[in-house]
């Protein structure tokens, strides 16, 4: 077969994206590749970073983000800034000129009209939720979106913002 001839004599590297393989599984893969005339390169793949720089492996990362949540029982007004390492829940409004920055999710049980930055340390699956989501600017991880210059109709119900692809997308909240 032409395909077989094409791969003949080449070497392959194994990149495991999720989970781990036992050495017998790797041996099996090596056997399969050999049947097609390919050789498995067993050296650790070079990803441009050394294992140390990659930081702790996911399994050992503490579940701190999910655990710590700050409950704010008042309205955050213009000029007030709230920074928190974790999630933030506001029982009140976030007024224009106010700012919330946190490493986790932001939930506003009221109107969000100021600036909200969720997942500020790079957590792209962070969300921003509000009963009335009308932010001046919305940031999730490294992404920024702002309110359009023309006036929008007022949201009719709770909405949630999350990252879809490489954009922040607003949608009506449903669970």
């Amino acid at each position: 077969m032409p395909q077989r001839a094409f791969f003949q004599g080449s070497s392959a590297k194994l990149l495991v994206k999720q989970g781990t393989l036992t050495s017998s599984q790797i041996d099996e893969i090596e056997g399969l590749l050999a049947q097609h005339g390919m050789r498995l390169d067993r050296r650790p793949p070079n990803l441009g970073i050394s294992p140390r720089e990659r930081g702790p492996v996911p399994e050992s990362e503490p579940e701190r983000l999910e655990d710590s949540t700050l409950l704010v029982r008042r309205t955050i007004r213009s000029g007030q800034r709230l920074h928190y390492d974790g999630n933030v829940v506001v029982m009140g409004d976030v007024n224009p000129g106010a700012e919330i920055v946190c490493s986790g999710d932001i939930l506003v049980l009221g109107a969000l009209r100021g600036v909200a930055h969720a997942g500020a340390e790079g957590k792209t699956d962070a969300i921003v939720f509000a009963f009335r989501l009308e932010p001046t600017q919305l940031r999730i991880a490294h992404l920024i979106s702002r309110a359009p210059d023309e006036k929008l109709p007022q949201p009719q119900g709770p909405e949630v913002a999350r990252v879809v692809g490489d954009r922040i997308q607003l949608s009506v909240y449903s669970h």
Partner: protein
Amino acid sequence: MGKVIVITSGKGGVGKTTTTANLGTGLAAAGQKVCLVDTDIGLRNLDVVMGLENRIVYDLLHVVEGQCRLRQALIKDKQFGDRLVLLPAPQTREKDAVTPEQMKELMKELREEYDFVLLDSPAGIEHGFKNAVAGADAAIVVTTPEIAAVRDADRIIGLLEAAELYDPGLVINRVRPGMVRRGDMMSISDIDDILAIDILGVVPDDQDIIVSTNRGEPVVTDSKSRAGQAYRNIVRRILGEEVPLMNLQERGVMNWFKRILSGEAQ
């Protein structure tokens, strides 16, 4: 024991001084003993609005520095005499010449003597604002139906909370009902939506204010003025009465006719 109320706004030019003068005069007309204090050091103008400029000998700074007795610096009003007095701001000195501690002491003294002490705060959120807030028991926030003024009012409400002055009353000044109706001006409910504090009063934009300010006679004593009526209502609310917000529709045959045509008049 009297009550010390600071009148503040953040943004300049929204009508703090006019509000202070009118509420002070209105409270005095309602039989209260009132002291007005101008804390806008270096830029005083409450004395001008009250028409008392030419009677100033001593000011706030002389009092806190002990160069005169408090009684010597208090200027009696033309109309109400002892019942309404003004402590003017120094015109020439540095604005941080007075400290918040000195203000607290002064307020303690004034509270003994008067039913209401109204503090006219300077614009801004710096030293002068901190002075004005230092000795106060309550606050009135003045705003106009403009986004910048409302934004600053919001900032001020936050700062008042930080200074432990909770639940300030809101005065919305210079409302033009026609513009609101056409959607060219923020409405009362737009403002209430953001600030969410008790509305003490809504004052319509009124040419009488300019006339009365230039004359040095607060409009609150003018029974024909719409703005005067609005201020009298605020005074009654400060004194604990329940007064509904007044209907701001412009009067006159033409306006009535316009409303009929637009289907608003019922």
